[in-house]
């Protein structure tokens, strides 16, 4: 199947190195300590952060750092065909783990010993790149909750189809069976904190694809920064400073 037309356009009309439209909003769940919604094209997720708070299960308490927990769940209506049993399958457990590890790497956990931070991500619509969207939403929610972080982690995926590296795969491109490289970076520190790939790819091409994904992450980081700045200005205005 042809994923990039001779004119150099993808199935949804994007250029190979073009990202889907990003949209984010901070403070979507009133009761949470921090929350955000993040959209990449048709993929839409909500993240809510509760904490730092008392550790619920005393056995898990750590005396030198905070406990970070994460749960990823998909809504029944998030996929094209209705799902019946969404809770606790292997895929969501794996993604929860990936998000937890990525976020733990950037939270300054040693500042909040004997406490717990819960990150809940809920997928409302899945159209490829849910992993990345969840990490971006979680970053925004953590920032909204005022949790100290080393940097804003951002994530983006890239693939390689029809001998062309493609940025930010959607569902159709993702299920084409080509490689899918998901990268998470700390943009200011210039460090990679998450790297996943399925399928095989020659090393020199992999370098290009990864570079493309990193560029994507940086674009996301700029956007997230903008949203946070806007939100901060709004808060400042509300306080009447």
């Amino acid at each position: 199947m042809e994923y990039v037309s001779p004119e150099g356009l993808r199935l949804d009309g994007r250029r190979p190195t073009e990202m889907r439209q990003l949209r984010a909003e901070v403070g979507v769940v009133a009761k949470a300590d921090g929350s955000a919604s993040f959209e990449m094209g048709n993929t839409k997720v909500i993240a809510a952060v509760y904490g730092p708070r008392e550790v619920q299960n005393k056995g898990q308490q750590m005396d030198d750092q905070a406990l970070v927990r994460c749960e990823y769940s998909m809504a029944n209506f998030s996929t094209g065909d209705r799902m019946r049993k969404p809770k606790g399958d292997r895929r969501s457990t794996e993604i929860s783990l990936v998000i937890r590890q990525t976020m733990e790497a950037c939270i300054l956990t040693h500042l909040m010993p004997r406490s717990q931070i819960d990150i809940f991500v809920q997928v409302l619509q899945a159209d490829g790149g849910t992993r990345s969207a969840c990490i971006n939403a979680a970053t925004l929610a953590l920032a909204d909750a005022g949790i100290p972080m080393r940097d804003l982690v951002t994530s983006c995926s890239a693939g390689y189809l029809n001998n062309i590296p493609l940025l930010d795969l959607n569902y159709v491109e993702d299920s084409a069976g080509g490689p899918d490289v998901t990268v998470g970076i700390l943009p200011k520190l210039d460090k990679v904190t998450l790297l996943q790939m399925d399928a095989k790819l020659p090393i020199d091409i992999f370098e290009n694809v990864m570079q493309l994904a990193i560029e994507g992450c940086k674009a996301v980081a700029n956007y997230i920064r903008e949203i946070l700045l806007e939100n901060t200005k709004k808060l400042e205005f509300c306080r009447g400073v």
Partner: protein
Amino acid sequence: MGLSLGEKNFIKGGIAQDIRTDGRKRLTYRPVSVETGVIPQASGSARVKMGATDVIASVKAELGKPNASHPDKGRVSIYVDCSPTAEPTFEGRGGEELSIELSTALQRCLLGGKSGAGAGIDLSSLSIVEGKVCWDIYIDGLVVSSDGNLLDALGAAIKAALSNTAIPKVEVAANASSDEQPEVDVSDEEFLQFDTTGIPVIITLTKVGRHYIVDATAEEESQMSSAVSISVNRQGRICGLTKRGGAGLDPSIILDMISVAKHVSEQLIDKLDSEIAAAEACDEEL
């Protein structure tokens, strides 16, 4: 919910004096906002916000085979999921109990009895070929943020989602043999709208102390002795009723609550209908 004695007394005292902690009267709703078409993949969807309560309902229509006992009727099922984003205790299987409670309450209020008689949704309109093909309607609710009164919000969201629903028009190939599964052609272009005028709204009256209130927040719900959810349609008929909470109620109070619910429902239906119409207009413009 961790409330001090003073806070508890403040909530109760306020309700007794007809001015609640957020300044509302006992029978006033929080502002309701409706957004339709939030899930493009579904046949219909809506998001309803009542104060800090935020729920999404989506409707999906699939072709299925009708039940042998009711060959002339389609099927509607309602599932509710409580997202842990709404409350950390919903993590893992923690929200399951509440999800099931809400799903069954909604089924009772909207779908009528087992036979489908008295349902808010006209099940016979979902039949395509009697005994062979019908529409299976799956209604999925998701609680994104919870601040009390989930049932009313979900009921409103389902009503809004159903008015947003477009069901494809179906052509049945006219091969007459009676025991074969008939071939059906689902149109991509022509859609039918649901008739939502008969769908009831749900009014939950929460009893705190000697009085009862509508649209209770989570704090107020924590002080309740019992709650009665009544679904009322536009004609003022009662379509379903459930009572929750431990304390017993005097039968005369229940009758009184029903008449109050009927009165409140008129305002809520009007408000919802205008919100839904506004949301639909806004949705079409985009």
